[in-house]
């Protein structure tokens, strides 16, 4: 059985997205429920659950072409709404010259990647890498397949390949006008080895891209059909709820299990090193309710004394310590001593929770010689290896059925939920679905680090900065994740947004001190930049205000010689009505950054009520991703980034008390909702060239800075500490 979905026509091309459904018996559980809605399974989401990682009519691990010309393209990354499940196959299509309406997309198998010498390369989705890092590789995949199809046609016609061309899934012999369909050539092409790999197209040679195209996953996400990790249904599975030690790193000392004795439907109480779990027969709710009756005792050690106020003091106290130099231009000390005026300010940003809408979860079926894991992971390959280690099986025996991710933002690659689920499965010896409550998800997040930045600057008689220094104290994401890095160098995520500033300040010194706590820290949407751009753009605004310079014009001057930056800034100022009058109590702020090789400038317009309440009225975004696959998703990602950044700017903060995160749910960790969402205008300004910039993150950092700067314009009050809601903005 096949299901067909017709996506709306955004580009005057109909896109039909098809895939096999779950009607076959090889899929465990999905669509097996007796309910009417469960019988119609999603098309795209079925494949991640499939054991079969090869197909008939394969040209290679990436592409299969059936006799009816339908093209199967494998997608090796993780779809969390950012659209790379659509964008990467579009890049392949550009080279393959196939008919997009005949393309169906499947997840690539992490097991096959392990088995076949990493034929799919890296499988992770973070750092806006899906397109940026894979673009060459997938273009090569498409180009090779195209050339092999052409070679197959040329051989059949006994003509030179150079006389043949490929377009819309047909090879044409130009001199004679003869044609062969891809479906007729695939079997022969599969046997052809090219003597030399074809050169891939430059963006200037593209004929199919960029193209505004509906995302292939959208229709599955409007009728409940899309399967997320949390939706896995495995016959005989039981449900687990877990409570890890509230203080990260603490150990389980004891738990009185007798309170649950005789409770119906309880399969087991599983004691782990750092956590206790309850497993129930028929519902997660039963497990969760039973877990809440346990009163585990924890051994938390000295970490149990840590609180936010002290932590902030410690970080600030460390600002004077010896640091690692991240950037050193000119002679800051000399220039400082000669400045007409000098400035100092300290900016501070708190721990943040990722809080994807889908709480962390994993479903595992552990057998003697095989492990199946159903999960939404940003890195199916990393998940596979973590699962192999935890289970003691070989990587080839592990099958990660990666699903749609209910948000990731950097959180969904730690594998902690997978390792826990396997530990529980070892005890109960049945398939287990482990779900974290929202409270567990928030308090056991691996947080966006806390950071303090001390700025100093000197300005000349024209008010322009001649020197600035930035001293950063924050925690090491690399050490927390386990990425080796030389200790005498500044790890990029700790300094991103500062070192990467585009300003022609002749003397710059940027230094870093890493100060780790017991709290795990992790990559977050636009790591480093999501806190440091707020700081540097705020500090620059302070300099502008003190020297009576227009913030936009000051930036423009400091970006002299960088036409790409200036262009983005100018469009933002123009489209964002920079300089036009606003009513009392309202103001505009501007900010710009470079992140993942994309430039983004924004103008925010805010109104601050006498009560101090902030309303962000409008945000103008200009984004230069250099090149584009699908402008549709780039606009979506820019809007998404603005809302994500606003939540961080206005409300985001994890407070630590007695070593544990205080906030546990959306009642205390506030999210921007529809009523607070500003009008967002996105302008795409791709500058071309050979570089590909990211789309999913670069619009996060500037919005935070632009809003803070707009608040200053509206009220005269400078925001140096986030979140904004912690600042007193009442007018007297």
């Amino acid at each position, binding site marked *: 059985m096949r299901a067909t979905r017709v996506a*709306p026509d*955004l580009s005057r091309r109909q896109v039909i997205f098809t895939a096999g459904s779950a009607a076959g018996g090889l899929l465990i559980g999905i669509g*097996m*429920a*007796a*309910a*009417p*809605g*469960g019988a119609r399974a999603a098309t795209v989401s079925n494949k991640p659950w499939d054991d079969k990682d090869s197909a008939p009519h394969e040209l290679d691990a990436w592409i299969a072409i059936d006799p009816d010309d339908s093209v199967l393209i494998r997608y090796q990354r993780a779809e*969390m*709404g*950012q*659209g790379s499940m659509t964008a990467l196959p579009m890049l392949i299509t550009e080279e393959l010259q196939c008919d997009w309406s005949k393309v169906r997309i499947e997840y690539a198998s992490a097991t096959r990647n392990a088995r076949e010498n990493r034929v799919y390369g890296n499988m992770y989705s973070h750092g806006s890498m899906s397109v940026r890092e894979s673009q060459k590789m997938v273009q090569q995949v498409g180009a090779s397949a195209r050339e092999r199809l052409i070679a197959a046609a040329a051989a059949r016609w006994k003509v030179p390949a150079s006389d043949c061309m490929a377009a819309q899934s047909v090879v044409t012999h130009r001199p004679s006008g003869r044609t062969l369909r891809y479906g007729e050539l695939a079997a022969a092409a599969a046997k052809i080895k090219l003597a030399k790999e074809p050169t891939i197209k430059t963006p200037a040679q593209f004929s199919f891209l960029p193209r505004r195209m509906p995302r292939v*996953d*959208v*229709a*599955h*996400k*409007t*009728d*409940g*059909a*899309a*399967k*997320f990790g949390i*939706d896995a*249904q495995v016959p005989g599975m039981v449900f687990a709820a877990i409570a890890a030690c509230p203080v990260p790193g603490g150990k389980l000392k004891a738990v009185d299990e007798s309170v649950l004795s005789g409770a119906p439907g309880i399969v087991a109480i599983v004691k782990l090193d750092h956590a206790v779990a309850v497993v129930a027969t*028929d*519902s*997660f*709710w*039963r497990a969760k*309710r039973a877990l809440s009756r346990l009163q585990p005792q924890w051994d938390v050690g000295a970490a149990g004394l840590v609180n936010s106020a002290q932590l902030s003091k410690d970080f600030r106290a460390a600002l004077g310590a010896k640091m690692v130099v991240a950037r050193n231009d000119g002679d800051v000390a000399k220039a400082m001593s000669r400045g007409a005026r000098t400035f100092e300010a300290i900016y501070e940003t708190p721990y943040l929770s990722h*809080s*994807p*809408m*889908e*709480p962390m979860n994993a479903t595992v079926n552990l057998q003697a010689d095989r492990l199946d894991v159903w999960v939404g992971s940003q890195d199916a390959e990393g998940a596979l290896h973590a699962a192999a280690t935890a289970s003691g099986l070989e990587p080839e025996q592990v099958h990660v059925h990666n699903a*749609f*991710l*209910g*948000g*990731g*933002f950097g959180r969904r690659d730690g594998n902690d939920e997978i390792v826990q689920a396997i530990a529980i499965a070892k005890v109960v010896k049945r398939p287990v679905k482990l*779900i974290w409550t*929202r409270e567990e998800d928030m308090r056991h997040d691996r947080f966006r680090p806390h950071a303090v930045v001390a700025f100093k600057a000197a300005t000349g008689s024209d008010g322009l900065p001649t020197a600035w220094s930035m001293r950063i104290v924050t925690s090491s994401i690399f050490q927390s994740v386990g990425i080796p890095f030389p200790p005498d160098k500044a790890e990029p995520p700790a300094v991103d947004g500062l070192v990467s500033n585009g300003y022609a300040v002749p003397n710059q010194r940027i230094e870093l001190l890493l100060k780790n706590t017991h709290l795990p820290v992790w990559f977050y949407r636009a790591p480093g930049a999501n806190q440091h751009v707020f700081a540097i753009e705020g500090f620059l605004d302070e300099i502008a205000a003190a020297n009576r310079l227009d913030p936009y014009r000051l930036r423009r001057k400091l970006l002299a010689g960088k036409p790409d930056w200036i262009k983005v800034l100018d469009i933002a100022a123009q489209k964002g009505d920079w300089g036009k009058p606003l009513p009392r109590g309202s103001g505009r702020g501007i900010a710009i950054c470079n992140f993942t090789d994309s430039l983004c400038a924004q103008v925010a317009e805010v109104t601050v009520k006498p009560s101090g309440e902030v309303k962000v009225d409008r945000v103008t975004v200009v984004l230069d991703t250099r090149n584009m696959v699908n402008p549709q998703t780039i606009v*979506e990602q820019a*809007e998404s980034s603005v*809302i*994500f950044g606003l939540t961080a700017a206005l409300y985001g903060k994890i407070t630590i008390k007695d070593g544990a995160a205080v906030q546990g*749910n*959306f009642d205390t960790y506030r*999210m*921007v*909702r*529809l*009523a607070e*969402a500003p*009008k*967002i205008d996105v302008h795409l300004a791709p500058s071309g060239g050979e570089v590909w910039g990211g789309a999913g993150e670069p619009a996060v950092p500037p919005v935070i800075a632009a809003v803070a700067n707009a608040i200053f314009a509206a009220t005269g009050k400078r925001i140096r500490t986030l979140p904004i809601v912690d600042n007193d903005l009442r007018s007297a």
Partner: protein
Amino acid sequence: MITIQVNGTSRQIDIEPDTPLLWVLRDVIGLTGTKFGCGIAQCGACTVHINGAAMRSCSVPIGALDGAKIVTIEGLSPDNSHPVQRAWIEESVPQCGYCQSGQIMAVAAFLKTFAKPTDADIDANVTNICRCGTYPALRRAIHRAANAVKA
């Protein structure tokens, strides 16, 4: 034993009465389109229609529902054709998609009361969280759905 009707099918549910409807739908009946986001009626990911009204099913105990008619995202239309679903597809609203079952169910009920909503009506009544920040598209889609229903 509690009897409820889910998407037109009658079901006998034998479970502790304090079990939230959300977990009955997901774990007992196997309808996973309704999502768990917070468990405390904050996010709306679990929104379904109970006797025609949008409710956050994580906070409605099954014991209070004997005889109730429940519609989940799977039962909103047989073929993704409800005006709200169509508008959602046309405006490309979902990103990760996790919140969207709840958003669609909330908006479908909302439009029954506010056939031609203003932006202020939307602000006051559509309060589900979307962590992916699809709000601009969501607002466009609400207006589009309202216009389609009217037409």
